[in-house]
């Protein structure tokens, strides 16, 4: 029972109020307002004109929208599996008995605390075709310089590589938390039964870390769908728009071309796509668990 004179609901509301206000003003309101302006032709600076479904109709005829959406999907496919495996492998290393585990935990996680601009600029210079460090090494080894960011076939992978370096550490934290939750007794009893490292890994660690993996997968897919900064800083969407992702097009349409309504409409389509994928993932993974 509640303590006399203590009103939990009221106090709860009061304590949550400062956050709630900020949340309403900066999250909930823009969400609703975004939907609202997607039905208008609006340039931010003057008053908008009602456009009905025109922005959504135009979107389905815009080849740039579809190519940008495809580039985003491509990025999701390039990054998600690798980041999952990489994060998990790093987590295995830092939760194991290796003498390097403290050092490697820091080494793996430090990139994640850097800002996206720093990471993007750093890798853009490393990968610069004529003067970048990577191609200096390639030349030393007698190879032809690689157009990391300028070859349309490789550019998206190069952005992917920078992203691996940058964000794998976050997945590592999630996975190592998951691994640490597994009861020591299970490992001990398997050791008594004579299980080797790989049997322990595949029969105990991986099955028991599945809920964490599910969470990690959903977060990773959402994060990859929202990719913007790395691409914007490293390739500027180039070569010839080959790496322009949907968020970049949304940004350009809104803040460079002043087509706020159109920009909001595209953002809402991206939102729907992410929503559907997340729900499917959640349902599929949830079913497996029960």
């Amino acid at each position: 029972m509640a303590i006399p004179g203590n009103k939990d609901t009221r106090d709860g509301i009061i304590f949550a109020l400062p956050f709630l206000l900020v949340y309403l003003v900066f999250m909930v309101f823009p969400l609703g307002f975004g939907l609202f302006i997607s039905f208008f032709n609006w340039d931010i600076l003057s008053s908008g004109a009602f456009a009905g479904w025109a922005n959504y109709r135009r979107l389905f005829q815009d080849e740039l929208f579809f190519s940008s959406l495809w580039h985003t999907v491509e990025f999701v496919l390039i990054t998600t599996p690798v980041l999952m495996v990489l994060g998990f492998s790093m987590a295995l290393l830092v939760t194991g008995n290796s003498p390097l585990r403290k050092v490697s935990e820091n080494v793996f996680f430090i990139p994640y605390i850097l800002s996206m601009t720093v990471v993007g600029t750093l890798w853009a210079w490393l990968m610069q075709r004529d003067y970048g460090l990577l191609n200096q090494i390639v030349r030393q080894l007698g190879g032809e310089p690689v157009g990391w960011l300028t070859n349309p076939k490789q550019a998206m992978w190069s952005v992917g590589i920078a992203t691996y370096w940058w964000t794998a550490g976050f997945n590592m934290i999630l996975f190592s938390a998951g691994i640490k939750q597994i009861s020591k007794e299970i490992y001990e009893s398997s050791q008594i039964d004579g299980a080797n490292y790989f049997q322990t890994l595949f029969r105990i660690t991986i099955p028991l870390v599945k809920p964490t993996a599910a969470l990690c997968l959903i977060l990773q897919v959402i994060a990859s769908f929202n990719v913007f900064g790395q691409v914007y800083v490293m390739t500027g969407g180039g070569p010839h728009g080959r790496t322009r992702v949907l968020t970049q097009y949304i940004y350009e349409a809104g803040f460079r071309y002043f087509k706020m309504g159109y920009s909001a409409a595209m953002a809402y389509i991206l939102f729907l796509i992410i929503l559907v994928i997340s729900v499917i993932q959640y349902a599929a993974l949830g079913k497996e668990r029960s």
Partner: protein
Amino acid sequence: MRTHNRKRAFIAIALIGLMMLSTLWAAGTQEQTKQEGPIEVTFWSLFTGGDGEFFDAMVDEFNRTHTDIVAKTDTVKFDNYYTKLTTALSANNAPDVVVVHQSNLLGYVPRGVFLPLDDLLAKNNAPMDDFVAAPLEAVKYDGKTYALPLDVHALIMYYNIDLFAEAGITKVPQTYAEVIAAAQAVQAKTGAMGLAVDNTTATYKAYTLTRLFMSMIEQQGTSFLNADNSKANFNNAAGEKALKALVDMVQLHKTTPAGLDYDGAVNAFRLGKAAIHFNGVWATGSFEKQADLNFKTAGLPPMLGKPAAWSGSHTLAIPAQRTEDPAKLDAALTFILWMTEHGDMWAKAGHIPTRLSVYEKESFTSLPHRKDYAEAAAFAFAPPATPAWEEVYSTTSDMLEYAVANNQNVKTALQAMETRINNIIASY
């Protein structure tokens, strides 16, 4: 117990209220004292790095020589500048003076966020005939002046004297054939790159292609868009010749390597590994700092006919405020006029001045290189005055880049570009 609690709550609220009131009052008095001192003109500029130093030096000089006006700056990172400016303008929160590129200015003007300056200029007897005609014309929209040009930054030619000498080139190339011949001669005799022109987007978009394409069309006496900027005007013989010239540099004559990005092109020239480099005048400063680099500048050669060169311009504009304070407007204009009048200080960053009087100043004529390309201001043309320009510019760059990289048939490429550009213009 209850009443006690209430009392405490009341005291707490009263205290908070009092604190808020006192800060408000303090802010109010501050505002009061400000009015009596010099007038404060706030401004935003987008200059960082090399340009930034010279701009800051000019502002310091302005503040040193003016007791009645104080100019205060807040430099915004170039990447975010227009996002920040747009939000500030929409919230009526913009500073008194802002730096805007001429090509961006006209995207804002139809939205009524900048003050037409004509009345203010007349009232202050601004010396309008001292401005170079072309850049001044470029800040007008529907016959009204919306900004004053601080500089012209035209596309020019940089060439390496040592490499030219080594290859036995004595005459500065003028026609397309001469440019290609010079580039090939250097490549054959020295192994250096012939023509450093970026054709691929990496950190920077390969805008040089678009700038050259537009210049080459103008050199043939026509223009990129039609007269009222409502349609593309490049799917014709002039456009084909211009695009072919760009594609051939990379694919046929091989004077420019494929996949060259902006940083690659600039650094190749800076390190003395390229004979000819086309870029805006802003690169001059960094080339000058490079030891052992012997280079000269010239206006963009009239490769396909008469002289014409793409140019941009930094302009100074006054955002429209909710309430206009005449004294502040006069101060803002004084600041703007002073900045343009001291274009010799700004020319140190490489830019071409916009005031005729500056060209006679000893401090300008004694600068190396500048006078070699200052004539370029006369045949520099500004991008078309249409709100659709940003999108047209960026789309054209992507498509030209694609055509050059894939050795695309020029007719096919121009047909696709025409359709896209016309669709874009129609959507505004």
